[in-house]
């Protein structure tokens, strides 16, 4: 594999490796945080004792790595490069060189971000949301100088890279489909990538603008986000008439669709895997595809639910609460669609299927707290507590990561011509499932007890939160188990890539075109999920089979 390759499948693997590097770094940071929260005075190897600002730097970098470099890259552009052209019957992506440029910009963004650890005062402490004036004024805290500049540059470069990747995906889907690959014959993954690429184009360009404005406030004397008379660290820094609320609006207009960019590809993949491993057609295919689109579009008008207690007008809070509650409806349709596929299917519990089921479990568990947080009056208690941390780690992080695991186990033969080990895969699944629930489910209770996010230790000058200390210890133990279980996965990936069982053609008996033999270049005449269950056996018609051959 050439390093500067323009081959989409090689780029897909590079994206997945980049996400793997980011997820390893992000996980290690989170373990340091978990250990520090439970044993705040423990000196850790390599870190020493964690100072309060170190903890906040860990939070910021953990969030940034996971959201941008793992959940935005792997399920979307990573998997899309791996299989999207084949799935629609194209030979390659529409713009191969743009595609390669996007990957290398993403890699550069990751390096710039990690460099923030090594500049004076270290990484920024203002969280992945970087609310000004904390993020706008270097004197506001350690890491808000050079570290924050690097953070802004990194995310700026990442915006450009995502933009290029999305243009490429969108044009490929719109113009490179093989003859006969109509909209209703697209695998659900392609529908999901269509929606996420539109969202990426809209919101990452807007985030780039916001980042440039913030950079300008920091260095060019503008005042978009810093109000008149703002007094930081004994110096008046506010000379214009900016508003921190403007940043919140700009950031969350990006930030909420970003969540759907992370989870929609998983929803598409889960639909394909449920159909495949239940050997059933997708009932209500058009409805489920339309609901992906509806979720994406509604996702653009709900950003205010992150701002119920930010000082936004309470009437606007009501409006955003209603749009947010509306998203529960298409999401419920998707879940019921999946449950219908599974009911009455001839389920094959392979490792990719197990991870897809795990995705569904987390999507339900995390999704159900959505309607609670969508109610401003309840959010006025739960906002920025661990309840929110539990919510998004279940519905975005765990659902997203489980969909990535499902995809890796499923498409591994396309990457290496070998199968991953099923026994290790199942072991990995069960430990990960239980430890993930053990880590994130009890966070609901810490949140209900009022424990805010971003607290480096439970005991403050006024509060002790001693009632949740045992809960917090359990979370930390579970997180350590969760992270350790991933060693099984790493071992499985690298061992199977070298010595795994050689995969036969179409090992999962799938119908979509990425599994087609090299020779098959016919017109597409079939839908994406033509599985059927007969009296004693199952049958299927792949998309590369001609309709005339029907028995």
């Amino acid at each position, binding site marked *: 594999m050439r390093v500067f390759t323009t081959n989409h499948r090689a780029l897909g693997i590079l994206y997945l490796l980049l996400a793997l590097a980011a997820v390893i770094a992000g996980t290690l940071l989170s373990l340091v945080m978990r250990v520090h929260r439970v044993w705040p005075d423990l000196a850790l190897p390599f870190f020493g004792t964690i100072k309060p600002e170190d903890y906040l730097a860990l939070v910021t970098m953990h969030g940034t790595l996971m959201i941008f470099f793992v959940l935005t890259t792997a399920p979307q552009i990573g998997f899309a490069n791996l299989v999207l052209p084949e799935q629609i019957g194209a030979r390659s992506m529409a713009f191969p060189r743009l595609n390669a440029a996007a990957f290398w910009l993403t890699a550069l963004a990751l390096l710039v971000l990690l460099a923030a650890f090594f500049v004076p005062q270290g990484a920024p402490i203002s969280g992945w949301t970087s609310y000004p004036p904390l993020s706008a004024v270097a004197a506001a805290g350690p890491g808000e100088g050079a570290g924050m500049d690097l953070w802004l540059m990194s995310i700026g470069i990442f915006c450009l890279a995502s933009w290029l990747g999305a243009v490429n995906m969108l044009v490929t889907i719109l113009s490179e489909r093989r003859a006969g690959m109509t909209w209703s014959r697209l695998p659900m993954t392609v529908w999901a990538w269509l929606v996420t690429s539109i969202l990426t184009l809209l919101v990452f360009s807007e985030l780039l603008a916001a980042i440039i404005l913030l950079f300008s406030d920091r260095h060019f004397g503008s005042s978009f986000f810093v109000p008149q008379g703002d007094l930081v*660290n004994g110096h008046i820094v506010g000379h214009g008439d900016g508003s921190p609320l403007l940043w919140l609006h700009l950031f969350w207009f990006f930030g909420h669709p970003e969540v759907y960019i992370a989870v929609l590809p998983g929803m598409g993949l889960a639909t394909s895997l449920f159909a495949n491993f239940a050997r059933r057609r997708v009932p209500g295919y058009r409805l489920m595809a339309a609901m992906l689109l509806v979720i994406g579009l509604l996702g653009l008008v709900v950003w205010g639910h992150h701002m119920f207690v*930010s000082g936004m007008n*309470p009437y606007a809070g009501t409006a955003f609460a209603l749009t947010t*509650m509306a998203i529960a409806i298409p999401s419920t349709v998707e879940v019921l669609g999946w449950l219908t596929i599974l009911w009455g*299917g001839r389920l094959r519990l392979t490792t990719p299927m197990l991870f897809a089921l795990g995705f569904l479990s987390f999507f339900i568990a995390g999704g159900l707290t959505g309607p609670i947080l969508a109610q401003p009056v309840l959010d006025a208690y739960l906002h920025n507590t661990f309840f929110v941390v539990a919510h998004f780690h279940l519905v975005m992080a765990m659902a997203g990561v489980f969909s990535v695991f499902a995809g890796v186990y499923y498409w591994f033969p396309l990457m290496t011509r070998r199968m991953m080990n099923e026994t290790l895969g199942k072991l990995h699944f069960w430990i990960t499932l239980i430890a993930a629930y053990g880590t994130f489910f009890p966070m609901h209770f810490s949140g209900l007890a009022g424990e805010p996010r971003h607290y480096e230790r439970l005991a403050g000058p*006024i509060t002790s939160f001693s009632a949740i200390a045992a809960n917090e210890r*359990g979370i930390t133990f*579970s997180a350590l188990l969760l992270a350790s279980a991933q060693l099984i996965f790493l071992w499985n990936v690298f061992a199977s890539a070298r010595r795994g069982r050689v995969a036969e053609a179409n090992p999962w008996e799938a119908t979509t075109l990425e599994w087609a033999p090299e020779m098959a270049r016919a017109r597409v005449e079939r839908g994406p999920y033509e599985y059927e269950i007969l009296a004693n056996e199952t049958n299927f018609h792949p998309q590369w089979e001609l309709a005339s051959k029907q028995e």
Partner: protein
Amino acid sequence: MPVHVILLDAVRVAQSPTWMPSDGALHGPALDHLMRWNLIALCLCFLAAHAWLVAAILRRRKSTQATAPKALPWIILTALCAMYVWMAVIAQRLWAENRFAGPAPEAMQVEVVGEQFQWYFRYPGEDAAFGITRPELVNAAGGNPLGLDARDARGKDDVVSSVLVLPVGREADLRLRSLDVIHGFFIPGMRLKENAVPGLVLHVHFTPSVIGTYPILCSQVCGSGHARMQAMLSVVSPAEFQAWLAARERARIQEGAP
């Protein structure tokens, strides 16, 4: 360990249904009631969906063809949509009660000012008016943490405290400000949270209904001392409050200059 933790948590939740600290505000019981029903309803949905999943897995070998009842998903969808509408309506009514209407005219005025990493509470004094503050006059070491302007007579009797003392049963109208970065003003025991945003003056109002002390936390990351930015709300009897305020007023007048 994880399973054990989940079970332990489940038992605790059964004992104290919401894990929230005891409520001390007038609007709290309605909110707690809503929270409890939401948690129960959504927990049941979670269990039902997983029961369906497990059942689908268990009967996987028996199925000869697709036999899912066609109408059932639509019935469930309709029921769930009705539940979402119910949640939205109930919650909006409470939100409107708490936030749409302003405080009663006789509500007690207190200004809350956040700065890295400290909360200050200012009472307007007998003239019921806050004196002008200027950021360039802020001098915490010199006894003027909020930058009160001595030229403004209205500020002569303003009392600045690091403890929020409120009389029980009287509505409090807080005016939230921040000197530097965004802070989050959070009193779990009063079921109250609103950000303090530099450049904005935001009002929230509530009525403490139970005498006691309640922690005040910062809920928006504001810098390295974020986790230590805490204060105390002390809800006392009206007589005790009058005595406390009068003592502070006397001290303030004797002290003279701000």
